């Protein structure tokens, strides 16, 4: 049974179709929950995973969330996005938002005034370098450094060849490195 037919039957609350849906997509949802937890740096327990798993299916079944899916061929991606939303909601409820994000640029312990000044200069230099990047390049560097994605994964997300992605990452890092070096020399 293709996804279009399956979704249609599930929306009409066909019990057999829901059985098939559960067998076909529960692995994907289970994987997406674990992935979402890792993305949020949360060490999860089995109970956390099971709670969200059931919440996602309740949302799909009782609230007929599948009616919001516009293209049935996008079902796997849509389900993983829905699971990500549900997991972040769950985390928001469970833990107060992490405070580790520093409002200012990091200062390195007890630094002297001159060092602090240097940090601020480095900060503004990095800021201007990143802000000057084209949007696509910034996405690539964020995926690479923040989300630690491989070049192949990034190329699939941004629809660019791997070589291009590698070049952009290398070029951006090198550019910033050179700027910092130049600043230090001055």
């Amino acid at each position: 049974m293709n996804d279009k037919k399956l979704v249609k039957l599930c929306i009409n609350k066909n019990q057999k179709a829901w059985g098939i849906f559960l067998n076909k997509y529960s692995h994907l949802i289970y994987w997406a929950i674990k992935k979402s937890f890792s993305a949020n740096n949360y060490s999860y327990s089995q109970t956390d995973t099971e709670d969200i798993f059931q919440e996602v299916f309740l949302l799909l079944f009782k609230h007929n969330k599948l009616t919001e899916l516009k293209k049935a061929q996008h079902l796997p991606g849509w389900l993983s996005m829905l699971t990500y939303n549900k997991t972040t909601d769950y985390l928001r409820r469970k833990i107060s938002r992490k405070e580790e994000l520093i409002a200012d640029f990091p200062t390195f312990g007890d630094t002297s005034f001159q060092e602090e000044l240097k940090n601020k200069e480095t900060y503004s230099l990095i800021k201007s370098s990143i802000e000057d990047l084209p949007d696509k390049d910034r996405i690539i560097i964020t995926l690479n450094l923040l989300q630690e994605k491989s070049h192949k994964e990034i190329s699939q997300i941004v629809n660019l060849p791997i070589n291009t992605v590698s070049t952009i990452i290398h070029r951006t890092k090198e550019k910033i490195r050179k700027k910092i070096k130049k600043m230090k020399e001055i």
Partner: protein
Amino acid sequence: MKEEKLIKKYLQNATNEDKTPECPDEQVLLDYLHKSISQEEQKKVEKHICRCSFCLEKLSIASESLQNKNKKDLNPIPKELINKTKNRLGITQKEKNGEENNKSKKKEMFYLGGTVIFFILSFIIPQYFLQFLAGAVILGIRWSFQSKNGKTLIMIIDSWRRHSREKDEQISNRLKGHFQKKEKD
């Protein structure tokens, strides 16, 4: 390496981590992923996701899910959890009932088919006429007990018989009473 750390720190501070009203709809992100979006829309999405790690993370999970969707072995899931979820949604019972219905229908068709085949064979092979006929009768009886319509028919006949027996008794009692009264008079 130090530069990388600094860039990472800057990106952490400069990207939005939570969902905002500006975040595009999931469908738009999926269209971006599947390249089914206009260039203008694509630029709009990129302008947003380069500063929103919430949407970027969603996009990368969706992208990865497309590679992983058929790899069930990579994502083993406890069977108990599936059963628990089925119970919670109320799927199990009905699904089981459905399976049972299918099984009984198959049996019903088997008996009916057998009856017809045996009946035909009894005419084709006359030397075993009685044997095939007996087989057809046995399978026919089994079919009538198996099929819903057959069961209903048996119940109707049974209730009709019981009903008529009761009525017969009532009439005979009434007649007895009538005659007894006449005798007394």
